[in-house]
C-alpha cells in the first residue's frame, strides 16, 4: 500500500512575461510511516512539491493521490477539510498563533478544525506536551519561548489530530544546527511512536542525512531517490 502516489506532476507558474516550470514530470511514491526528505538548492521546487502534497495548490498536469483520494479534484472547502482531517503542517517560521498559549495552540486544531470532546482533548494534549518535552511550558505564550521550543510546539500541533502525514517545509531553516538536529530527531521519534509519515524539505545537506528516503530535486526535476539501503536512479 502506498500513502502518496504522484504521476507526471508538472507545475508551471505564469509570471508577467515568462512561464516558470517549477516542476516537470515528477513521479514518486511514498509509503506509510516513512521519513522522507525533498532536498535541493534554492528554487529547485521543494516548496512547490510540498504545497502540492499538502493540498494547498494544484498541479498544472499530472495525477496525485493521497490516502486513496484524488486530491486534485477537491474543491476549495473539500481541500480544507481534507487537510484538517489527514494532514499536519510544520512551518519554517513556526507560525504559532501569538494570542494563544502553548497549550491552546496545540488545542486549536482539535476545536477549530476537528471537533474533539474536552476529555479526549486534554488527554491528547498532555500526551503530546510530554512527547515534545514541553509539559511545564503549556501556559506560556509563543513569544515567551525559544525557536526550538516553538518548533516543538508546532510539531505537537501538527500531530495532535493524528494525521496520516505531516509536511514540513524547511522546518530547521530558522534554527541553529544543534537545535535543528534535535527537531529532526524529535520528528523521527514521533514517526516511531505514532506511525505518522513525515515529509520535510531542506537545502541543508547535513540535515538530509537524517531522512530515510531522500528525493533530490534540481530545476524542477526529480534527479534521484535514495533510501537508507542505497541509491536508485
Amino acid at each position: 500500500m502506498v500513502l502518496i502516489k504522484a504521476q507526471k506532476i508538472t507545475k508551471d507558474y505564469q509570471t508577467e512575461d515568462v512561464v516558470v516550470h517549477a516542476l516537470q514530470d515528477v513521479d514518486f511514491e511514498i509509503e506509510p510511516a516513512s521519513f522522507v526528505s525533498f532536498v535541493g538548492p534554492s528554487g529547485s521546487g521543494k516548496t512547490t512539491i510540498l504545497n502540492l502534497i499538502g493540498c494547498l495548490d494544484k498541479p498544472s498536469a499530472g495525477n496525485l493521490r493521497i490516502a486513496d483520494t484524488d486530491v486534485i479534484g477537491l474543491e476549495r472547502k473539500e481541500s480544507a477539510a481534507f487537510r484538517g482531517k489527514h494532514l499536519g503542517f510544520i512551518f519554517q517560521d513556526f507560525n504559532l498563533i501569538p494570542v494563544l498559549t502553548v497549550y491552546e495552540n496545540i488545542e486549536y486544531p482539535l476545536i477549530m478544525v476537528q471537533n474533539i470532546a474536552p476529555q479526549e482533548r486534554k488527554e491528547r494534549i498532555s500526551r503530546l506536551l510530554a512527547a515534545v518535552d514541553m509539559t511545564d511550558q503549556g501556559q506560556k505564550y509563543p513569544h515567551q519561548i525559544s525557536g526550538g521550543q516553538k518548533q516543538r510546539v508546532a510539531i505537537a500541533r501538527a500531530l495532535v489530530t493524528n494525521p496520516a502525514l505531516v509536511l514540513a517545509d524547511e522546518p530547521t531553516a530558522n534554527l541553529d544546527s544543534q537545535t535543528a538536529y534535535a527537531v529532526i530527531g524529535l520528528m523521527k521519534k514521533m514517526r516511531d511512536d505514532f506511525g505518522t509519515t513525515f515529509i520535510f524539505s531542506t537545502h541543508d545537506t547535513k540535515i538530509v542525512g537524517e531522512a530515510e528516503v531522500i528525493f533530490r530535486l534540481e530545476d524542477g526535476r526529480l534527479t534521484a531517490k535514495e533510501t537508507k539501503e542505497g541509491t536508485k536512479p
Partner: protein
Amino acid sequence: MRNLFKIAVRNLIRYKRRTLLTASLITIGVVFVLVFVSITGSFKAMIIGQVTDSMLGHLQIHRKGYVAAIDNLPLNLNMKTNAYAKIATVLSATPAVEAFSPRLKFGGMFSNFVETTNIRLNGVYPDQEFPTVPLLASRIAEGKKTLGRGEIMIPTLLAKGLKVKLGDTVVIVATNVDGSVNGKQFIVSGILESATGPGGRDGYIHIEDAAEVLRMPEAEVSEVAVRLKDFSRLSAAVKQLEGKVAGEVNKEGRPMLEVHSWEQLSPFFNIARMIDVMTFFIKIMLIAIVLISIMNVMIMAVYERIREIGTIAAIGTLPGKIRSMFIIEGFCLGVVGAIIGDLIGIAVVIIINLIGIRFDFGQQQGLLLKATLQPLDVLTVSIIVIVVAVAASLQPAVKASKMEPIEALRHV
C-alpha cells in the same frame, strides 16, 4: 464558539491602544447620542405636556369647519346640545379617554367700568375642565383653584393692563349669534399665568354663564377637549374616535364632526418634528462613526494577520470559521463601545439632573429640565452600534476567509 470569542478578545487585547482608541470613539458617539436623545426627548415631552395639559388637551372634537375659522370663534359653528350629548356618550364609553371637557368659546369685551378691552373666553364645566387640562390649576397664580357661577378667571396680562384685582367686579359684553348684544357682571376669582400656544391667553367662566351672556336657552359647545389615559397611543385614539363620530352626518350626508390631535392644533408640533429630524441625523452620524472606525480597524487587523490567516487556513480551518473570527472581533468591539457608552451616557444624564438645568419656554419660565433616558432608546442605540459594527467587519472578514493559504503564508 467560545473559542472564537476567546481568540477575538485576545486579539483585541493584543492591539491595546488601537482597540482602546476605536472603542473610545464609539463610546463618545454613543454618549453623545444618548445625552442628546435624552435632553431633546425630555424637552419635547415636557413642552408637549405644557401645551396639551395647560390648555389644548390631547385631542379636540369640533364641528366641521370650526378649526379653520377658530381665530374668529364663530358662534354659528357650535354643536347643538343634542349633538354634544351624543359625543359625550361616545367619549364616556371609550376606555382610552381619561377625561373630556366641553367648551363654549366666544370673543367679547371686558370692562372694569373705566376701561374696556377684548377678551376671548371659554365657558367650561369646572369639574370637567380641570381633569382634562391638569396644568390649568397650576396656572392660577392668584385666587382659588375652582370656578363657580358668576366668577371669572382672567389672564395675568389683562389683570395688569386694566389694574384688576381678585374680587373685583367686571363686566363681560358679547354679541350673540343673532347680532344683539348682552352683558353680565362677574367677580374675578382667579388670575391665570399665560400659557404658550393657542388659547394661552383666554379667560374662563362657567359654561352656563357663557350661555346666559350669549342668550342661548341651552349651552352649545364649540369644542370638546379630550385627555387620554395613554398619551403614547394618541394617533390610535384619534383614529378610533374619528370612526366613532363619523356617523354624525349633516343633511347633505357629509360628516359633521372633526377630530384633531394636539399636533394639528399647535404650531409647537413643527418644533417637535424638527427635534426628531435632528435626532435622526445625529444617529446617522453615530452610524458613520462606528462604520468607519470599525471598518478601518478590521481592515488593518486582517492585513496585519495575513500570515496567521494563512496558517490557520493551511491547517484546515474552514473559511466560514475564519470569517466568523473577524466578525466576532468587530462585534466585541461594538459591544464594548456600546456598553461603556451606555454607562457613561447614563451617568452624564444623572449628572445633568443633579445639576438641574432650567430653561424658559415662551410664557413659562424656569422650567426644570428633567432629562430621562428611555430604556428603549438605550437599547436601540446599542443595537444600532452592534449591528453596524458587525456590518463594518463583514467585508474585511470575507476578504480574510477568501485568502489562498499559500499566498497568505508567503506574505511578509
